[in-house]
């Protein structure tokens, strides 16, 4: 059977079963299993499934993910999140969409300690979502804001993905880390503007509470001081990482412990029950989330076997048209592949083929990596295979459709950011050129 056709049929089958209501993880495994059986043979498909079930998550990066989720649960039940958001709400009183904007910048700060977009999305899902609900924010508006802001983690250093890109493209890790900072902040700003405008145009998305009009400048100042626990905890974690006491992975454990201790001092975690339910809830979310990751990886392996990603990349590599057309098609291919393949796999399969072509067409190597990272961010949130969206749906007990609905306006923002990066490459290149 024709490999390409099989790959396309696989994607179609995946989507059909998905909309028929089959569990996400089961869907991936089923289609992957049938596809690999047809491509190779049943024995090989089964063997690979057995291996994937273990190896997909057997790495230190995944090992700490549940601890970030636990950190979110402790922070939420321990009163940490409530305190933080109540203060932010006061500081930004009368500003439409303030909590969503604060979440966006919160994610950007958190990204400076965490390289995992899934971890960032889940922790803010657990922290911010209940608070945004408390202030009557629209469900999809809130979920979209969190899912998309979570993706800053791979653009703003430290970032495991940039290290991987550095190896594929022979670029300096340090330069790539620097190159990611401004585009990361730019994205946060563009997201915030869009959230502000949408909240202003459609007030039901983020209603302004009557009480907000009573807030005095003095209240705002008090609320600002009230943020000290966050400043303290982030200082400890950021300080701990950048002085080398613990690695970015271990920060998950330290952070979880920190929020637990805060909860104990603050009082809300002094009984065993909230701790127990935090643990239980985290275990459940972890099981759900990791099973999808494992299954998505298995499905991606099937797609890799059909050679659709590499064929597409090779086609673009040999295409003789204007370089901007090639570039636009590369973006389109990354976007489409990012929809259906686990994001890390998209770039492992295509970046080594596409990168040299873009360089020979005269694009700046570091800049290409930043663009690729931008598409990597987008891949995590686009349906149907948007791991961050699943993670968020799981941790907030909401429907994945609602997350995807909320994500759409932000994809438009991402397009704007990509266009800005295209028109002003210095956004990515300024820091690495001047600071390295």
């Amino acid at each position: 059977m024709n490999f390409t056709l099989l790959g396309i049929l696989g994607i179609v089958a995946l989507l059909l079963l998905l909309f028929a209501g089959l569990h996400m993880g089961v869907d991936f495994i089923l289609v992957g299993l049938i596809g690999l059986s047809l491509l190779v043979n049943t024995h090989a498909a089964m063997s690979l499934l057995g291996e994937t079930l273990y190896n997909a998550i057997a790495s230190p990066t995944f090992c700490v993910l549940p601890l970030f989720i636990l950190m979110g649960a402790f922070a939420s039940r321990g009163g940490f999140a409530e305190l933080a958001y109540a203060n932010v709400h006061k500081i930004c009183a009368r500003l439409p969409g303030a909590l969503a904007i604060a979440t966006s910048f919160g994610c950007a700060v958190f990204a400076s300690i965490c390289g995992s977009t899934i971890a960032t999305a889940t922790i803010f899902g657990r922290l911010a979502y209940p608070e945004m609900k408390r202030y009557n924010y629209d469900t999809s508006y809130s979920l979209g804001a969190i899912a998309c802001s979570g993706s800053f983690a791979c653009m703003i250093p430290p970032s495991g993905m940039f290290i991987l890109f550095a190896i594929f493209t022979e670029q300096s890790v340090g330069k790539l880390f620097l190159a990611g900072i401004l585009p990361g902040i730019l994205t946060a700003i563009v997201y915030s503007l869009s959230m502000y405008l949408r909240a202003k145009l459609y007030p039901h998305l983020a209603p302004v509470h009557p009480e907000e009009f009573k807030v005095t400048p003095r209240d705002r100042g008090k609320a600002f001081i009230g943020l000290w626990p966050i400043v303290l905890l982030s200082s400890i974690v950021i300080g701990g990482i950048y002085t080398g006491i613990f690695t970015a992975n271990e920060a998950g454990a330290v952070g979880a412990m920190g929020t637990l201790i805060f909860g104990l001092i603050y009082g809300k975690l002094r009984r065993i029950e909230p701790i127990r339910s935090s643990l239980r809830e985290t275990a459940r979310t972890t099981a759900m989330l990791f099973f999808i990751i494992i299954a998505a990886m298995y499905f991606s392996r099937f797609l890799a076997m059909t050679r659709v990603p590499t064929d597409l990349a090779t086609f673009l590599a040999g295409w003789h048209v204007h370089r901007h057309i090639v570039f636009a098609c590369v973006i389109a291919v990354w976007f489409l592949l990012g929809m259906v393949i686990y994001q890390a796999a998209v770039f492992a399969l295509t970046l080594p083929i596409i990168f040299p072509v873009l360089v020979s067409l005269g694009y700046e190597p570091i800049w290409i990596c930043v663009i690729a990272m931008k598409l990597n961010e987008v891949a995590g949130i686009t349906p149907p295979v948007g791991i961050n969206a699943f993670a968020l749906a799981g941790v907030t007990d909401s429907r994945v459709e609602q997350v995807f609905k909320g994500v759409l306006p932000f994809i438009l923002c991402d397009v704007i950011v990509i266009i800005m990066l295209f028109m002003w490459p210095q956004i990515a290149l300024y820091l690495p050129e001047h600071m390295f």
Partner: protein
Amino acid sequence: MIKFVEFINKICAEVCGWMLSVVMILLIVDVVCRTFATPVMGVAEIAMFVMIGTVYAGLGNCEMGYGHVRVGSVVEMLPPRYQKICMIAIYLIAIVTIGIASYAMCDNAWASFVDKEGIAGAVSYPLYPVKFVMALGMLVYTAQLIINLYKELRKPI
């Protein structure tokens, strides 16, 4: 039987939760030892095993609470009768798929046991204990899917 599986799932959920705090403590012990004394080899690996065990042991409980992510909105637009048929079909597909995956996992765990498969690293722990936990977790997940199918069949339209 149903009670037994659901009891197992509840126990698992509780144990898994506490296991996560074990992971947290292990990693902190690792950091503290490295900072103030000599690093302890192999703690990070144990933390990883505990975490993987936790994931698989929690699958059944997650299914018990209907926690696995799915797109429900399309099915819900159907008339109740078709909704029920659709759900039954979905459970059947899920049972077969996860059943096959459980078999693949058991097979992998058995091979791991026969070979005394070990991990690469400073301390070479055997892999089969965690793989057996994974296999058991998958089997319990399958059992819970069967129970949920049974519940779906008994549900009035």
